[in-house]
């Protein structure tokens, strides 16, 4: 049994300790918002937060999060997450949408660490998240918009 917190609730899973966290979340916990894209920590579709830090869940053994707090797209909340999601909708970022859970989890972590990132910092924080629909220009704009709304500045 491996026990950890997921989206604020305690969970105990009877799974292979080597099972990647991604599959524990999807197949054992039944939360499917976190996506499989590459299985090699190359694309970022599986990004979740572990104790507030963005990690790629597709390689991380579930045993390594025992006793920790895991947040997925279904549970991410708070002012930063709300600002990011609002910006994503306002700028119509999504196309196919498959990578966007991971994009949003990376963006939320970036803004929680650094509420006013410049373009280079955005590109650096988001470079692990591939979007084959190439929504990148809108992702960049949405992060800037969320940053401005968090700092209470106008959206000019």
């Amino acid at each position: 049994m491996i026990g950890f917190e997921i989206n604020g609730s305690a969970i105990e899973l009877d799974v292979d300790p080597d099972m990647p966290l991604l599959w524990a979340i999807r197949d054992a916990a039944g939360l499917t918002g976190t996506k499989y894209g590459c299985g090699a920590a190359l694309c970022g579709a599986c990004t979740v937060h572990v104790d507030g830090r963005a990690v790629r869940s597709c390689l991380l053994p579930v045993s390594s999060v025992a006793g920790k707090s895991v947040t997925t797209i279904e549970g991410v909340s708070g002012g930063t997450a709300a600002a990011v999601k609002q910006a994503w909708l306002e700028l119509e970022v999504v196309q196919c949408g498959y990578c966007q859970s991971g994009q949003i989890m990376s963006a939320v972590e970036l803004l929680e660490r650094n509420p006013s990132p410049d373009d280079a910092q955005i590109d650096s924080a988001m470079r692990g998240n591939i979007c084959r629909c190439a929504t990148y220009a809108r992702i960049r704009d949405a992060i800037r918009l969320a940053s401005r709304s968090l700092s209470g500045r106008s959206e000019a």
Partner: protein
Amino acid sequence: MSAKTRVNLARRSFLKAGVGAGAGLTLGVILPPLAAAQDAAPGLPGSGALVAGRFEPNAFVTIAPDNTVTVISKHLEMGQGVYTGLATLVAEELDADWDQVAVSAAPADASRYNNLFWGPMQGTGGSTAIANSFMQMREAGAAARQMLIAAAAERWSVAAGEITVESGVVRHASSGRSASFGELAEAAARQPVPSAVTVKDPADFRLIGKRVPRKDGSGKIDGSAVFTQDVQLDGMLTSLVAHPPRFGARVNKVDSAAARAVPGVVAVHQIPSGVAVVARDFWSASRGRDALQIDWDESGAVTASSATLMASYRERAQSAGLVARSEGAVDTALEKAANRLDASYEFPYLAHAAMEPMNCVIRLDEQGCEVWNGEQLHTGDQMALAGFLGITPQQVRVNTLFAGGSFGRRANPQSDYLLEAAAIAKAGGGKAPVKLVWTREDDMRAGWFRPMYFHSLRAGLDAQGRPVAWRHRIVGQSIGAGTAFESAMVRDGVDSTSVEGASNLPYAIPNVSVELHTTEVGVPVQWWRAVGSTHTAFAVECFIDELAHAAGRDPVEYRLELLGEHPRHSAVLQLAADRAGWGKPLAEGKARGVALHESFNTRVAQVAELSRMPNGGFQIDRVVIAVDCGIAINPDVIRAQMEGGMGYGLSATLESEITIENGAVVEGNFDGYRVLRIGQMPKVEVHIVKSAEPPTGVGEPATPVIAPAVANALFALDGKRARRLPLGVNS
């Protein structure tokens, strides 16, 4: 199916005649009903299940007593925004409030949901979704509106002509009465279905041409949108397949003892495409697959390698190929020309590499089989599965889910991954639903690539630098040959998708020859976003740029002079050039390049602005895009498709390449097959030409234009011509 198909085919020619017609036109309509003879799964739209008080005027719209308008999409939503587009067309003519409109996927049933441009086939591709649906969806909305008005007129005992509809409210102004759609739904359902409807004058459009929120936006930012990968059914098992290491190899023998011993593994089956491990979950299936001991029979395997193939293609291009277009006397004109230019271009295989690797769920039952899939080719997949399972196509019921990208891949001409899943379900005796999951490596190595191509061009210029002769030879595999689409795609040995974008060269040149050599390799190939234009646009637009340079002319002016018969081409080119500041001086170390291309009846021009980087590489600072796609239904969706389509093409411009070595694919994941990342995405501006022409596609046409625009900018930057794609990030 055939009787209804004939109706729809007749409609198609009717629609073609009517599509360009003007204001407030009254049209005869025959819209299929919602309920069909062969019902879809219970609970899905089209099931024919009677829901109390629900108004189902036709196959494309239902109105519930709770005031929800549901638009039924016959097309796959794979990111291109088609749910939003189809809903806009219905809501416009219905005068619905945008917030009351929801969208759900149609079942597979070509008698009602065929693509009007594809005859009796249901499917999504060729950037046809909005173009073929434009009048059909408007008529569906107008018919529903007319029935709501009739119901209100009857209820209020007033003349229908005195009733107005606005934002989901039906109103009789002089008596002050009004009702919502939901309140009228039950009564509207009892009204006769109109045989003729009046569609709006474009001047009265309230949604078309405006920005409306995407219908698939909110579910895709909170994890609730359901993709095939997310389907969970009672008793469902997950399967991974060990595929042969080389194309054409087969299983000789397999030792599955260790795999069966992995906890969670339920079964191991040898199937035509490899060895399937079936397990309770993905991880067990994956560990089981790792434990398989397989002896492959490689005696029939493909031996080709990319490098040797390209050398043989280069050789083939020395001789004349089959004629795709011939005008004038090219050889004579080349001989007499004052100046002759030659260039050749090389293109690698490309994987689609959608973010969601291929997958599907299949359940076999007494009624036949039920499929959950990002379904792009409903009719073809129904036929293939029916053939394999020994049932009728109607017994293949399809639940279409969001696709996590496709770029053409999910419209596989051989239904490859669906048949693989069916084989696994059948091998298991049909006892449990099976979810087939491909890993990224499975997806990337399965083939169905954009083919490798070699192009050889020769042109002759007169003394003033004007082109007098143009000879274009293309060498590569046919996408259509050997598929059900061969008769439609291949004429006299020429696959139209091998030469599209070259054979319709828009520039006025008196002597033109476009020729094709079709090769046979054994590497499976398929349409990849923008298909033939992904290579022909590069060859044509880079070469015309060389001609302009040789003539000492500005590349934009040179093109414009040759586009006399193509005013819409000229207009997009001029618009992109104007907005990009073409001709205005740039700082040292910066340069611009331009390209123009028509695909899927949409014209796109792009200007790329590059900077030389200190490390010798280059950076794309800005791309200005102009597009003419007829009436702009959803301008923001069009902008998104221009941005994203360009970005998709930029991956192939800069880095993406599939390499074949001795019949095996070298790249397996995003470390080897590199794709665009956020730091490489330039600033993008999109300008849409105002138009009253019927709408044309936007999903694909931006993709092929960026590579030549960047290559031409690179030439302007350092005087070197790019001859192969990808360019490499630091070229």
